[in-house]
């Protein structure tokens, strides 16, 4: 089925099987393997990408559902030699070990910070009418959709905190 998706700023015309997930289209068709398949069922967050600026699990979405959408993957965030600030922060804080969940963590963090900026609440938000304070507990709750089995959780908090531009 013909589908056009703008990936990292470039319109990509695809002819995909209707069954192909956005994740597999990125990895197998477009050879953008930075987005990872950890569970294929929305239970780990390794496949997180930004669609029109919003973070989603690309494994639970069909490519054909994204005709006309703009998708940002880890490859669109920075490159070796030109790391984005959050990529540099993950490196500096050692916010990963095996590295497999890392692209998803980074995409998720960017989406999460935009959600905080937009004032979206989380389950850690006690007062739903006050501005969001990005406390460590808020940050942890909001990043809980990204499992890191190496458990670099404290380091991930430190990395995101260092680029959040928001006080604790």
């Amino acid at each position, binding site marked *: 089925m013909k589908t056009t998706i703008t990936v990292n700023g470039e319109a990509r015309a695809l002819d995909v*099987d209707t*069954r*192909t997930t956005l994740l*597999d289209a990125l*990895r*197998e068709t477009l050879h*953008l*393997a*930075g*987005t*990872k*398949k*950890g*569970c*294929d*069922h929305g*239970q*780990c967050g390794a496949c997180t990408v930004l669609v029109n600026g919003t973070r989603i699990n690309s494994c639970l979405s069909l490519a054909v559902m994204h005709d006309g959408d703009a998708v940002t*993957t*880890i*490859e669109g*965030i*920075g*490159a*070796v*030699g030109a*790391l984005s600030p959050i*990529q*540099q922060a*993950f*490196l*500096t804080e*050692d916010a*990963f*070990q*095996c*590295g*497999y*969940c*890392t*692209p998803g963590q980074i995409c998720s963090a960017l989406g999460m910070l935009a959600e905080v900026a937009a004032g979206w609440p989380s389950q*850690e938000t006690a007062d739903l009418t006050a501005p969001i304070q990005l406390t*460590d*507990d808020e*940050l*942890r*709750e909001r990043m*809980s*959709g*990204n*499992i*890191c*089995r*190496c*458990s*670099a*959780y*404290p*380091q991930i*908090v430190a990395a995101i905190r260092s680029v959040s531009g928001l006080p604790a």
Partner: protein
Amino acid sequence: MSSVADWEAASNPVKENRAGNIGKAVDRYEGPLKVTGTAPYAFEVELPPSASGPPLYGVMVSAAIASGRIAAIETAQAEASPGVRLVWTHLNVPEQGPRPERYDFFTPSPRPALQSDRVYFFGQQVAVVVADTFENANAAAAMVKVTYEADAPMADFHAVRDQGVQPPGEQDTEIGDFAAAFAAAPVTIDDVWRTPLQNHCQMEPCATTAWWDGDKLTVNTSVQMVRFAQNSLAETLMIPSKSVRLLTRYIGGGFGGKGSFYEDLVLASLAARELGQPVKVAFSRQQMMHGTVHRPATEQRVRLGATPDGKLTAMSIMTVTHCDSRGNFTEHASNFARSLYAAPNRLTGHRLVRMDLPVASAMRAPGEASGTLSLEVAMDELAEKLGIDPMELRILNEPETDPETGKPFSIRQLVRCMREGAQIFGWDRRTPKIGAVKNGRWTIGLGMAAAIRGNMLLPAKCSFTVDAEGVITVKQGMTDIGTGTYTVLAQIAAETLGVPLGDVRVEIGDSELPPAPGSGGQFGAATAGSAALDAGMNLRKAIAEIAVADPASPLYGGPSQDITFQDGVIAIANRSERLADLIRRNRPEGLVAEGEIRPAADARNWSQHTYGAHFVEVAVDTVTGEVRTRRMLGVFAAGRILNWKTARSQLTGGMIWGVGSALTEGNAVDPRHGSLINQDLAGYLVPVQADIGELDAIMLDEVDDKANPMGIKGVGELGISGAGAAVANAIYNACGVRVRDYPITPDKLLAALEAKGL
């Protein structure tokens, strides 16, 4: 063969650390690739132009019963499905080397796939479909219809634990007269703890990309042990080892579960040969739960006898555990206790039951991870009975020499870990009074536990090359499973050859490189690193010899043993030149040196371990039984630390695994079906961000000169050891109940609270 005394006596650049590379918090060598998503994991490697055609996709079909045989297997519909290139079952899979009756991690042997109509465990692979796309392969795999003749599985561990027998070749160890001492002890503890099956849940499911170039097979796969997998695969395929090139450069988590390899590797290799095209095969997340290995469940009976002033007189931990019907893996949950506390009368041992369950094997700190969940809680219980602070009780029973063997400790700073940890954590704020501190709906509790994990050194080789640019390349058939291998090898090379870190390249994860055992048992850094140091020393010698023999060198004619290596410059006193210049003149093609490490002949004369102490603050909601870890500190002594940053991450990661083992992790077995009820990451709950509060690890200054030439030890498995027990002890301090059946989930805590009328 070296002796420990040789290691202690000899100085070397790592010990001297003149440039300061050792211990430094260096960023991960491969980090830029990982944070940009450009490190290719096994399923993602770009195929070389020589590979004929695009990759085909293999999807495996897993058994739906735990024991029995395949009565019929219907593949016609799958074979006729769009895009399908082959369907293999036990009826038509190509011939493979025969499976030995028993096998282990370190001895290569055939691991044939789809071997017979027999089903030994639920989730065993029974067929594979290869098709042009992943979607077509998946759809066709669902069309393979298998009819079984099922036997009633023996799958209820707690019902058959009494059938446990002594594991092959093992004996209980008894010192003194445990039974008499325990009977006579004025204060005793006698309880049973249960730990469940646990799953590694590496983020990267096992996967292989395979292609052939004539008779030569190249496989990219995700395994912890390079040579073991290469040789075993060759034996499986019945081809020479040199015909297999196995690459495993980036590994999305191992934790012991990729110490073995699985059908993805074998079937991708066979199918690529059959079809003359590259083939990729990956496990699904669901297949990972049953089809790879797991940590088996245990039941541990701990008995402690003590005098009223807190001296242990009797100590026993007896573990019953299980493995698969054909295996012999034993979760040695009792072993660590042989070296932890002084007690004149001791009894430890294991019983093993073979069951119709998936294959049991090593998972992070096999033995310690399970065993500390009992003994380190039992010590807390004993402390309470005695009215002694739990940390002081441990210190009271600190042994001078190994309490079982009488051997001296190579170095043992357990007490210092506890003392320093207590001070930093604020242990003095703990009160033995239950539930003394409230915070809203939460009741706060503090707990601590000791950590211990053995240390190992295995044989390994390594090569160093210096090129005409003065760049050092480390080559080793080693792996980095997130442990930091790339980075610490680069640091050792930079320090040894006196070059900037940026002038070091590291090549690992390739069977064509000098062999190393791989990653596991927290032996990786010491083993791989010691071989690297030796290669570096040999390269220094080779460079020195060339320099003093080269009339064009300012070092010509000098005493080669006086050469220094610093900042890419070699010098004798005030005569110097750039290393690159020397090599460009003399060895423009590069200069190679090899090195190796072997365990010292007398290494076993010392009791050698890594140690630590965990301190935890938990919050318990006594209405709901929910538990949160708010604060956690580990203080560890693990020899010289090569990289403060990556070592700390290994330790904090291990501590979080301990939290998972205490609170959320476990595979429940449905004994009717012999299958795990939680088959994915929504059912098997590993900790998420929100489960972990403030958490840190501190490493004491330490050198263990008896461990290896660098005085380093491992940290990958120390962090988990004892961490879960500290959580359990903190829960008790908060709410006054003990749940001895892990994980401590709200339902169990609630039942315990209600049983106490709370």
